[in-house]
């Protein structure tokens, strides 16, 4: 289990207790986090689950794989240095306390 927080473009903050093994994108969708689209269901096809990870939280995550790097070039809101696709982040204990900012727009 990990407690993860999303700050949405509308300013709302939603904190969720997420189960291990789940995709961060799916956790957001299941709980209706505003601004996360996830149109392809987490198959790295759409780049619509774009989140930005504040620097102080980066250490919790392993860096993006090559496929995610490629897809990050396609996000509607321009990629930032700490941008990630939340479908490629898998919940584990190590993520406890993670906080991410949902990209201002996804399409």
């Amino acid at each position, binding site marked *: 289990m990990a407690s993860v927080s999303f700050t949405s473009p509308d300013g709302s903050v939603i904190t969720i207790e997420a189960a291990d093994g789940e995709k961060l994108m799916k956790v957001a969708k299941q709980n209706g986090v505003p601004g996360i689209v*996830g149109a392809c269901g987490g198959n790295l096809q*759409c780049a*619509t689950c774009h989140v930005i990870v504040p620097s102080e939280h980066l250490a919790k995550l392993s860096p993006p794989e090559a496929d995610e790097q490629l897809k990050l070039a*396609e996000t509607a809101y321009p990629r930032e240095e700490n941008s990630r696709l939340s479908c490629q982040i898998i919940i584990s204990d190590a993520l406890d306390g993670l906080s991410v900012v949902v990209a201002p727009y996804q399409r």
Partner: protein
Amino acid sequence: MKLQSVAIIGGGHAGDELIGLLREHDFEGDITLFDASTQGPYERPPLSKGFLKGDSSTESLSTRSPAFYDRVRVQLRRGVTVTSVEVSEQGVRIISDQGPALECDAVVVATGMAPRIFDLPGSTASGIHYLQSLEDAVLLRDALPDAASVVVVGGGFIGSESASSMSQRGLNVTLVESGSRLMKRAVSESVSHAFQRQHEAAGVRLMLNSGLASVSSEEGRVVGVETINGEKINADLVVASIGVRPRTEFLDQTGIVLQNGFVIVDEEGRSSHPRVFAAGDVALFPNPRGFGEPTPIPSVDNASWSANIVVRGLLGTSAPEKRPAPTFWTEQYGLQVQIAGLIEPHDHSVIRGNEQGSSFSVMHYFAGKLVAIEAVAAQSDYQAGAKAISSGFTIPPEVAASSDVNLSDFVFSASQGRRSEG
């Protein structure tokens, strides 16, 4: 028209997206979701893939947590089938098989597709399965441990994927398809052949240009089938994936313009009646290429995109300027093809890489313009192609054909160039 209440008919991907998006766009009125399923919105792509293989549970398919529906204040009418709709200038009245009629200001039809059912000698025997809903998938999955052999009828995405999943579970699978190759309406010949090689390597028997003549049973249970070529095949189960039709019969008396059951809608998802919208598989939007006949686009990507459009149409907010290329994908035996754009019509195609190998792409052109890419285990090419198509940029055929050129670099530098020009 100031909306106070919206009803959504259908709890598939489009209906599910609509709920969240209406609230994200600050709609404060009543939302009612009519869902014929009692299971609630769930993910459909895994049904013929991981779910059938036994990799995922029913619970893991839920798209939302129970708390979500409370938070977004949706009236969920689960297990309820809408039987008719009355539309007038003043509003919409929805009549269902359970509970009182609902009066609302606007309705979104997102009922999806119903499977075509066999009408053959013997086709009422038990052991004949369809694969459209979660309920169907559970019935089939639970029948698999007691089965040794299965005949899959229909080699579209769903039929081909379920043949792959059941073969990987160790079943003896025969796949019967009426066309000359698998997934003929969705992918080009090279891609069909790449997947056919996977099926054959896994020991699946492919019977192309064939079909069922009858189903034979003993004591009401399937024991085999006979093909139109007269061949008899033993089978414990038959899985039929022989086509779909839009679930829109309940609109028949409304005067809303349909085409083969699909709801014809404008760029904002509005039907011929201003209070009736459609999203997902049942909606027939203007062709995303900007010309040509409207074409059904059955995919989760389209469900999500159309929900986004319809919400803007309902609430009168502006629509995004240009539609990104529609995308599709399938995965069988671990091999994935990703498709961006509509393949038909095209007048020229280029193969990138070795189509007999484990990774290649097919780029399709129409009137000199890149219109679609199919990427078989070629993520980088796919990303580049999808980006180019969505932005209306054409990768010249000679560039596409050259394996020496990195397409991502090419598209990226071209888009940078265009930006500096503009």
